[in-house]
């Protein structure tokens, strides 16, 4: 079990997202407020089109809010430009995506090294080998994504997410593209590594059972925060 502190890893303050359409402005998210303690895991759940992926993109600094702010590890995102947000992502955030998002022309090892290399880390290779070993792919280092199964590709993506020891990990439907067995394997791996590294986990999922493994569950409905429920993981109080 990770050690939990009282510091907020994520603070969401009146977050609103609107987009322009032919019929006028469309509100996708409206006045969302919550916070996540460092080392906690939260699941964002909701029906398709409820706005959960938009929320994830705003939390990770991939998009900018129309109103409100996101504070990541004490750093307000709203005041930052794209380059500064990229720096925040490089320093503090790891990602796991539903569609793996591996660079097809790089091997498993090189995909894992990628974030560290972009950050100028000279020990990228050693770190990547260690992480691939942790996800059970030490025998697949020089294989390209097209030579790996879906489960293996997602394990490479998880190893990549943990390189550089991010403080926060965002996972968008990490097991949705996998069969049940591989899905469970990936989920277990994700939670285990999260606990080992003391990372704050933000998980977007449809899967109620998976969501319940987190400390808290954020329910989004029609772009609004419907409720926050407790998961089965130990609460930080």
């Amino acid at each position: 079990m990770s050690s939990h502190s009282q510091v907020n890893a994520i603070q969401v303050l009146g977050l609103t997202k609107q987009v322009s359409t032919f019929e006028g402005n469309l509100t996708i998210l409206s006045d969302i407020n919550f916070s996540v303690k460092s080392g906690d895991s939260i699941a964002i759940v909701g029906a398709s089109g409820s706005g959960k992926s938009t929320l994830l993109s705003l939390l990770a600094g991939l998009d900018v809010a129309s109103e409100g702010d996101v504070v990541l590890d004490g750093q307000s995102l709203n005041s930052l430009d794209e380059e500064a947000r990229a720096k925040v992502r490089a320093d503090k955030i790891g990602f796991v995506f539903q569609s793996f998002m591996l660079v097809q022309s790089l091997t498993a090892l090189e995909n894992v090294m990628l974030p560290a290399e972009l950050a100028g880390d000279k020990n990228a290779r050693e770190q990547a080998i260690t992480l691939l070993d942790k996800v059970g792919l030490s025998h697949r280092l020089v294989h390209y994504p097209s030579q790996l199964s879906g489960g293996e590709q997602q394990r490479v993506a998880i190893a990549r997410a943990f390189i550089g020891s991010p403080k926060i990990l965002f996972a968008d439907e990490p097991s949705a593209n996998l069969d049940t067995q591989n899905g469970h394997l990936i989920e277990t791996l994700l939670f285990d590594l999260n606990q080992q590294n003391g990372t704050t986990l933000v998980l977007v999922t449809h899967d109620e059972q998976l969501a319940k493994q987190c400390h808290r569950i954020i329910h989004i409905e029609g772009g609004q925060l419907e409720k926050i429920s407790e998961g089965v993981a130990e609460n930080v109080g």
Partner: protein
Amino acid sequence: MWGKLAFRLFLREFKRGELTIIFAAIVLAVLTIFSLSSITERISLNIEQKSSDFIASDRRLSSNHAFDQSLLEKATSFGLQTAKMLYFDSMIFANDELVLSSVKATTAAYPLRGKLTIKNSLTSQAYDVNSGPKLGNIWLSEGLFYSLNVNVGDNIELGAGNFIISKVLVKEPDAPFFSLSGNKRVLLSYQDITKTQAVQPGSRVFHRLLFSGNNQQLTDYYQWLKPLLKSNQTWQGIKDRQSPLGNNLNRAERFLLLAGLFGIMLAAVAMAVSAKRYCERQYDPVAMMKTLGGSRQTIRNIYLLHLSLVTTFSILVGLGIGYILQSIGANYLANFMGTVLPEAGVRPWFLSIFIGVICAMMFSLKPLLDLFDIPPLRVLRRNLGDRLVISRLHVGISFLTIFVLMWIFSGEIIITLILFASTIVVISILFTLSRLLFSAGRKLGLSPGSSWSLAIATLQKRANANAIQLVSFALAIKLMLFLLVLKNDIISDWQMQVPAGAPNMFILNISEREVSAIKQFFSDRNINHEAFYPVFTGRVDAINGEAFARRVSKQEGEEQEEGAREGVNREPNLTWLSNLPEGNEITEGQWFSDSDDIEVSVFEGWQRVLDLELGDTITLLINEQPIDAKVSSFRKVDWGSLKPNFVMILSPNMAGRVPVTYFSAAELLETHTKDISQLLKRYPTISMIDIKIQIEQAQSIIAQVSVAIGFVLIIVLISGSLVLISQVQASLAERMQEVVILRTLGAKGRLIKLATLYEFMLLGAIAGAVAAIVSDIALLVIQQQFFDVEGRMHPYIWILGPVSGSIFVSAIGYFMVANTMKKNTHNLLRALG
């Protein structure tokens, strides 16, 4: 750190084939430009060298007045080689025989280009020499030996001078194609002119200064000379000369230039398509790198390094392949002609590298800017950043770049504008047509599940992509058809100028009483001959009673008028005829009426120079006798033909008013050698001009240029094929996805294969049809405007276009996707990533 990552990504992308298309496009551009410009330059240099032989120099200065010695001295100071020449008609005397002959006196350096061919006796073998007769010696052409009944070693009198006949003059490099001065030619040393006392003040003599050197020296000298040129002095190069050769050279150069432009256009299309496609394929990796914290600067550095590496590598490969290609082509041509082609200079190297770099930069610019702008959010919203519509800026930059490249390469704004504008028209028509066709296809009502309905459905689904493909296919087919037809037309036009069985000997100075006897002579020996034209000389003295002020132009680049203006100051050869001669065309007015007045048909070039109008009265001074003739028509004359042409043809009612000699032409074969000698002995006053050598030389150059054009056509064909391949490759991923979906839905392999085949057949047929129509229209303009070839429609390409387009596109397209269709669904899914 980013450098290592960038280099690794580059190698991997290259290995995976992601950069193959862009690499191939730059290689294609560079090798096309390099091989075309090298070959054209080498051929051009060779033709120029050979052509220089025809004027025995690189440039010449002509006048009917003596030149100031300072012109030669200055030329020497510019590093040029020089020679002096003087020619005039004079009587020569031997064995109590007196014959009018054309005398040419030259300094020792003559000929500066080409060779003189001589024989030691009438029966010995001919051989080449680099210089004319020594002091006191004289060389005579064969005809004079018969007319004067002399042999080598005999003495001969020319004016006040006495000379020893030392050689038989067989050939001079600068002998005229057609001249009524006859074949009684005499060559002697320039220093012996004084001895003859034949040149006196007021004598009708022609002076020439010959120059040879490199282009820079010639240009520098001309720049110095230009302001000093007098109105009676004319500066000439081979291209200024109105001869079949000069005209054909200009056409060949224009054709090769045009082919080069097409090569650039095709390469540019391939480059624009491949650059856009490559950048689109990089959207996901870039979005991912940005998500993982990669800065915009890092990403910019990575992809600019990719562009630099692929550009450098492909330029090197393009130059390598281009060099090999042009070497093979040049060797083939050299063997074909039995000569060695001179090496090209540095221009092809610089030009191809420059064009390669410009292509890479300009066609990648907008796609790269789009790539740098890809938002990281694309990792969640998968379509974000996809350009559903074609970027106007990309299209604008691409078109501007193509235009500038064509302009740089051709150096001719008008031809560039015409080609460019016609291409824009093709593209506009095709876009409109393709959208109409693809939407109309919905109403065809084909049975669901058939290969045809699947093919049409696929075409409709990718209407935008197909419109672009269609434009590329049509452009490639259009350019290929265009060149093919032009090549055939130009070559057949050339061949018409020197057809097999054409007369190769001109017979002049035939008196009226000899005409029937010579006709009989030919008839007895089965010698083909042309009509006997009455010939006389006359000077234009006045127009509508107003004395004509003579003037001579000295400008360059006014080829058609140049000859005409010169002609105004000379006494042109005139004739009378009942019918319009072959190869002439009335441009204004009517051929002769039944009027009792004498009428004249005038060459249209003289119409402009003399400012003539129909109905004007020209006063001709013939044998000092003024004859008034009313202008009844103006004619276009094909000066390129090896047939006698006349600037003025008078109506048949001139017969009997002036003394004339007759002129004819005959086809004399090797077997007629003895007959020629017999004819000359029997009628010593006639002159014969052997144009066999000129015809052979012209045919050899035509053959050489024809092979070169064929070679260029192959290069353009390969370029066109690569454009098609790059287009099909660009759509391969999408096709793989479709195959997966169709297979998953249970479609049989045969259905998918046939649908793919039909889709390409339809695309090819539509592209080919439009290409054929537009090519034919554009050909009409280009042929008339730039090749001086009669414009005509070519119905066969209206069938050839769609059929060849259909076969060509379906063969390449099917071959490209066949491999994809062999893969099973699982492997396809894996390959799609």
